[in-house]
């Protein structure tokens, strides 16, 4: 049992009011005078042992005792007593509230969603906050956002709590835990409360520096949703794939509609078995761009609506545009035999669909030259990256390949053994492979003294470096050379979005290619965001928390459509874990809600009111009759 504590102990001095109260009671007590025949019997009564018992003495001065009791109740109420919930009182409590997509699940038809239930629980905690307790609210989605600093302002806390909305993104608890850890630098934190439905990754890579309470909202969702939506080039057509997953108990018939704007271009009816995912394939024309939208329609109630729609922007199919200067004749010879390519510079006219392109799909350049236009995939032949020139030098001499990555995309099925290279790249001084990795490159092939092939794959831009010039090696005469060029072209197909397209998921959008230093604006239903393209044309940093259609508008007025969908198996499955795994401990969901310190002042006020009523009744009893 915990002893009650007081948050305003100083109010105890008010008990001194008992002194004037007692004094006034006896000074002001005016007894009605009653004349009686004789006091003989009354004197015997007064001196009776029973009358002088402590209880009878108490009863004789009941009015005074009632007044003292009233004062005591009021003073105790002013001292703000409480029953501590735990052995250590929580002064600062960060509350992490899961706002991921699964929290928008409506488990009972006509009821509120899980976030509403979470809000109710946190609201109760806020209302029970004592004056010396502070709370901070942190929204946890795929990142963490602090809504309030530690504060005891209940109105502010309640307002921020009400402003919480479900985000169409998966949850990432470790970000929230790290934010709480950061908050611990400014205030002492004993415990952190996490309110969630448990639809989070069960294993979390985080070392808990505080106690974590997991308040789990019990869930019984029944949901089906689209978890994958992609398209693959099939000649001049697209094969479109839709994957449907669901919660463990979800099953039954559902329709999948594929639309391009208002036009329905496909429809499939599938039967979903519990725990089994279904993949549906559509084939559509690829000669024109399309804004595809796949919609899942169930006859049964569906807990989560946001994952029933997925969007995919399909580009018009066209040839791959490859920049390869004529000086690299060996490359051009290989490229010439590969299908559906446009090699520039070319003597003839470019096809109209590629003539106005501002980027190349693939650029193969010699030395430190740069292609005239940005390219999604670039191969520098015989070039050391500028940032590594102080670490790597190309010495004269013959180099032999010591090792290479057989699984690297560029070098798959390429045999480099016994390739003679008349240039010998090697590390300078203390430089090593680590130096290369710090510059963002990965070493895919190496000699005994230094790297031969470097790769840097960033979002939509791949940069490959052959640190030796292939013309000064025996590689063009090997079978592996056309394979290397074909791998390069395949990577370009992938990066240009002409081979396979995947629908964009919510969260931070992948970087897109744009005009260097151009300002871009992402406009959606809930507002817009701005970002400036980097020097290499990369446009990145847009965070999207709502599924829907967006427009990426450049400063020059160019507009690109983007369809963003949830597409997250974890969220669609509504799987709940009741135990969070950490590096050293596992945290099980609490059976009960985090007990808050129980304030007693309201009860004391009620007691005071009751005492006052009793006193009023006692004072106003029916008038006595005089003998």
């Amino acid at each position, binding site marked *: 049992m915990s002893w009650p504590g007081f948050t305003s102990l100083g109010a105890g001095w008010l008990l001194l009011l008992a002194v004037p109260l007692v004094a006034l009671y006896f000074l002001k*007590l005016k007894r*009605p005078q*009653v004349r009686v025949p*004789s006091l003989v*019997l009354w004197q015997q009564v007064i001196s009776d042992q029973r009358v002088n018992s402590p209880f009878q003495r108490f009863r004789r001065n009941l009015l005074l005792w009632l007044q003292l009791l009233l004062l005591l109740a009021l003073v105790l109420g002013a001292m703000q007593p409480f029953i501590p919930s735990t052995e250590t009182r929580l002064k600062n409590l960060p509350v992490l509230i899961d706002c991921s997509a699964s929290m928008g699940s409506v488990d009972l038809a006509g009821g509120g969603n899980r976030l509403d239930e979470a809000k109710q629980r946190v609201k109760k905690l806020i209302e029970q906050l004592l004056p010396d307790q502070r709370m901070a609210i942190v929204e946890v989605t795929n990142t963490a956002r602090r809504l309030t600093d530690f504060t005891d302002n209940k109105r502010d806390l309640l307002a921020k709590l009400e402003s919480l909305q479900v985000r169409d993104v998966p949850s990432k608890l470790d970000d929230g835990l790290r934010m709480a850890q950061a908050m611990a630098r400014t205030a002492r934190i004993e415990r952190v409360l996490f309110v969630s439905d448990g639809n989070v990754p069960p294993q979390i890579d985080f070392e808990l520096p505080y106690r974590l309470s997991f308040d789990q909202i019990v869930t019984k969702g029944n949901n089906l949703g689209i978890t994958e939506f992609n398209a693959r080039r099939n000649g001049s057509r697209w094969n479109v794939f839709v994957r449907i997953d669901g919660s463990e108990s979800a099953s039954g018939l559902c329709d999948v509609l594929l639309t391009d704007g208002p036009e329905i271009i496909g429809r499939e009816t599938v039967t979903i078995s519990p725990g089994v995912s279904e993949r549906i394939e559509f084939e559509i024309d690829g000669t024109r761009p399309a804004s595809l939208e796949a919609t899942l329609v169930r006859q049964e109630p569906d807990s989560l609506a946001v994952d029933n729609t997925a969007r995919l922007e399909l580009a018009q199919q066209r040839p791959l545009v490859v920049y390869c200067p004529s000086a690299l004749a060996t490359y051009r010879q290989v490229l010439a035999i590969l299908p559906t390519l446009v090699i520039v510079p070319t003597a003839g006219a470019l096809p109209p669909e590629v003539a106005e392109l501002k980027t190349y799909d693939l650029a193969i350049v010699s030395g430190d030259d740069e292609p005239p236009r940005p390219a999604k995939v670039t191969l520098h032949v015989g070039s050391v990256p500028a940032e590594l020139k102080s670490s790597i030098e190309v010495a004269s001499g013959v180099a032999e390949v010591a090792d290479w990555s057989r699984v690297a995309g560029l070098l798959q099925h390429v045999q480099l053994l016994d390739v003679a290279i008349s240039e010998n790249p090697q590390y300078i001084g203390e430089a090593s492979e680590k130096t290369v990795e710090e510059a963002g490159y990965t070493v895919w092939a190496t000699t005994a003294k230094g790297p031969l092939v470097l790769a840097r794959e960033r979002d939509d831009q791949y940069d490959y470096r052959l640190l030796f010039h292939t013309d000064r090696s025996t590689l063009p005469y090997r079978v592996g050379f056309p394979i290397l060029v074909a791998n390069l072209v395949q990577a370009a197909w992938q990066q240009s979005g002409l081979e396979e397209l995947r629908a964009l998921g919510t969260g931070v959008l992948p970087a897109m290619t744009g005009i260097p230093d151009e300002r871009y604006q992402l406009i959606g239903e809930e507002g817009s965001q701005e970002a400036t393209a980097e020097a290499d044309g990369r446009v990145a940093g847009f965070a999207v928390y709502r599924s829907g259609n967006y427009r990426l508008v450049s400063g020059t007025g160019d507009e690109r459509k983007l369809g963003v969908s949830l597409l997250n198996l974890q969220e669609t499955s509504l799987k709940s874990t009741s135990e969070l795994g950490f590096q050293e401990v596992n945290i099980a969901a609490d059976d009960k809600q985090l007990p808050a310190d129980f304030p007693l002042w309201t009860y004391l006020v009620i007691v005071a009111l009751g005492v006052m009523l009793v006193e009023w009744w006692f004072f106003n009893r029916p008038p*006595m009759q005089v*003998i």
Partner: protein
Amino acid sequence: MAGGQLTSLLSNQMLARAERLRLQTKRRLTNRSRGEHLAGKGGTSTEFNDFRDYVPGDDMRYVDWNIFARLGRPYVRQYRLEEESYVVIIVDGSSSMDFGEKFTRAKELAALFAITGMVNQEPVSLYHGKSMSVPVESLRKASGRVGYRPVFQFLEGLAAGGEATIEEAVRAVLKRHRGRGLAIVLSDFLTAGPIDRMLNELYEAGLEPWCVQILSAAERNPDVTGDLRLIDSEQGHNLDVSSVGDLLGIYREHLVRLEEHIASLCRQRAGRYISIEAERPVEELLTSSLIKQGWLS
């Protein structure tokens, strides 16, 4: 006095009924002087008792000559001796009696007892103890019907209101009274003094104590509550009592204890005790209490 009533204290019917009653004392406390009460020894009354042999010196008037003629031996007739017994009626006139019907009922009962005594040729003395500073008012030795009027006038003229307690009044009466008999004390007996001592003094004076305790309903069941300052009507003393209503149970217990105490004291002294309610009319008291309990017959 309306309707030809002899007194305002008792109705004529009540007077007529009282004249047919007789005080039933437990002991025969009589005086040597001839009276209406038969003494155990031989006397000169007309009521025959026995015969005995004549001895010289006997009064020749009591020789039964018929027996002498028949038996040839003189025998003397013996008659029962009738002696007189005083009836002393003491009415408590203190202020405590001046509540409700108490004093009125005391005067009515005093008249009743006096009539019963006087009609049986008993000398009836009436005393009214009121104040320490004023001598006891009295009417002494009224007897026979001729004593009715003085008795009624005396009683009708009494008024309550004084500080003398009943034991002080009795003590004052005993200083003036001489003669054995019966002492009827009409009081509420709400006194802090020793009642046993008062009864002892009556007993030692040859008076059989009859105590009539007259209490009003407000004294038996006080309807009071709250915090009060009680003021004694006789002494003027104050007593602060809180939550009086909660003490009524104990009050009643003490009242019952007082009644039992006085009754016990009277029994020990071959006396009588009765507690009556002042609100009940004297006709009802006579029938349901005094006759029923053998005070009068």
